């Protein structure tokens, strides 16, 4: 059985599709800290410089989901579900002009998931 770290709700997936049609290839990057932080942000694929310090958590609607490795250390025991809500963020995330905001719901990985993913 394949275990995953990230998932996406149906409503959020629709928005990802919509953004892909408009902007082309995309990535998710999980931000940390401050006002609009601790939120998933979606950008055009070439917009953000990524390197070995960005951990690939998985793919949602064929969009890679990254998080900085230092932040990942504290998050690696949690399963993330990307959802969408009405809101107004002030980051550069592409869904913001739609009056929407990606958010995450978290739960702890089960013992089985943890064993498979973090060992």
């Amino acid at each position, binding site marked *: 059985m394949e275990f995953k770290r990230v998932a996406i709700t149906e409503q959020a997936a629709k928005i990802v599709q919509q953004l892909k049609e408009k902007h082309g290839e995309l990535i998710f*990057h*999980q*931000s*940390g*800290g*401050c*006002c*609009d*932080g*601790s*939120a998933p*942000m979606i*950008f055009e694929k070439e*917009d*953000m*410089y990524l390197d070995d310090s960005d951990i690939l958590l998985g793919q949602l609607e064929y969009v890679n989901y990254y998080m*900085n490795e*230092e*932040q990942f250390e*504290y*998050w690696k025991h*949690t399963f993330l579900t990307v959802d969408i*809500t*009405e*809101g*107004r*963020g*002030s*980051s*550069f*995330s*592409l869904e*913001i*002009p739609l*009056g929407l*905001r990606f*958010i*995450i*719901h*978290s*739960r*702890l990985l089960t013992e089985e998931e943890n064993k498979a993913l973090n060992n």
Partner: protein
Amino acid sequence: MSYKKPNFKEKYGNFINGKFVDPVDGEYFENKSPIDNSLIAKYPRSKKEDVNNAVEAANAAKEAWGNTSAAERANLLNKVADIIEQHLEEFALVETCDNGKAIRETINADVPLSVDHWRYFASVIRAEEGTATELDQNTLSMNIKEPLGVVAQIIPWNFPLLMLSWKVPPALAAGNCVILKPAEQTPSSATLLMEKIADVFPPGVVNIIHGFGPEAGKPLASHSGVDKVAFTGETTTGQLIMQYASKNLNPVTMELGGKSPNIFFNSVMDEDDAFLDKAIEGAVLFAFNQGEVCTCPSRLLVQEDIYDAFMEKVIARTKAIVQANPYDVNTMMGAQASNDQFEKILSYINIGKEEGAKVLTGGNACKLEGEFANGYYIEPTILEGHNKMRVFQEEIFGPVLAVTKFKDEAEAIEIANDTLYGLGAGVWTRDAHQLYQIPRAIKAGRVWVNCYHAYPAHAPFGGYKKSGFGRETHLMMMNHYRQNKNMLISYDKNKLGFF
């Protein structure tokens, strides 16, 4: 006593080249109040063309402005301070309506502090001097400070007028022209300020652009006509802005997040006196501004031998927080700034519970009645756990305190520094040695000692580690907005003798 929601026009423009202008493509967005989810007004949904116009206006104004005398610039900054002060209540009401925070905070903190930052930078440029060094008998090295030119500033929604007043005055004082983008959740107080000071500065010196991050913020941060970008916000946007700046080889300053420890040593409970009372308040300051502060003291570290007695008092004080109509002067905590913020905070409280943190008080949304039923209110919440939990490591930006205990000084320092961030910290003790040694051991840019959440002008503020770099609210910030021109002058009449 209670105030009412202030009146607004139907829509507002960008402030470019000394006047209010409509967005080029005519698009606006609706700005709502988090207090009751009611409409405030429409603001421009600016795009690249609007940004271009602002950058052009600022560039046209920069030479003349950069050559004004320090006395003239100081007079104009003081004039702004006087105007804000004369309309203190009006600014406070607009800020409360737009951000959701309680009126007693905007009247007593946001607006008067804003006034003082304008005055501080007005006075600084009258007092500071350049340097001149005689390197040898015939050689003088002279340092002249020159403005960078055009500065772009992007600020958050938690203290809209105050963050503007941290960023704009030092840039102007240094002789730069400014293009500021307020957060789209809170465009109102910056707009009110432009209405009040429209004629103070020459056209193009101060410009305000409204809009969304990807549509207006990005073209501003990456514009080749901008000489510096100053940003307050979160880490991913910070990284993006630095990337864009690297293309233009532009300097940047960043004030990013925090997860600030607030440490209480056992000596605080040696006496039951005014200082203990102050210390308890110091622990409860996590609820200040609904926890929407980069330096929110969101990790409470209490020495184990006083833990139970101390926490009993902290919980009692937290339960006494009055959460009601934010326009009422007796209300202590208002609304969270937006729906997504509200959702995020509740989601963190849940993950805290799931990770095994114990809810000592709060833990839920706060339901207010009547007209406030549609606002975004959350109970001040205390979660007990350990420092590896996500609620101890991530900035929640809400009224959520994570508390744990420590055995001794070494463990307190270890827990305090076990974080990605290093913006603020608090140390509370009656021990004279700890008063100095513990703050020195904490890796953070601002350590409050026997106090917290004070932000006076004249004390530099900024982060270590992933909390950014640059020091605001102080003369130091001026050098982040300036070049150093070194003139190396020879008074020797004789040639080198090489050729």
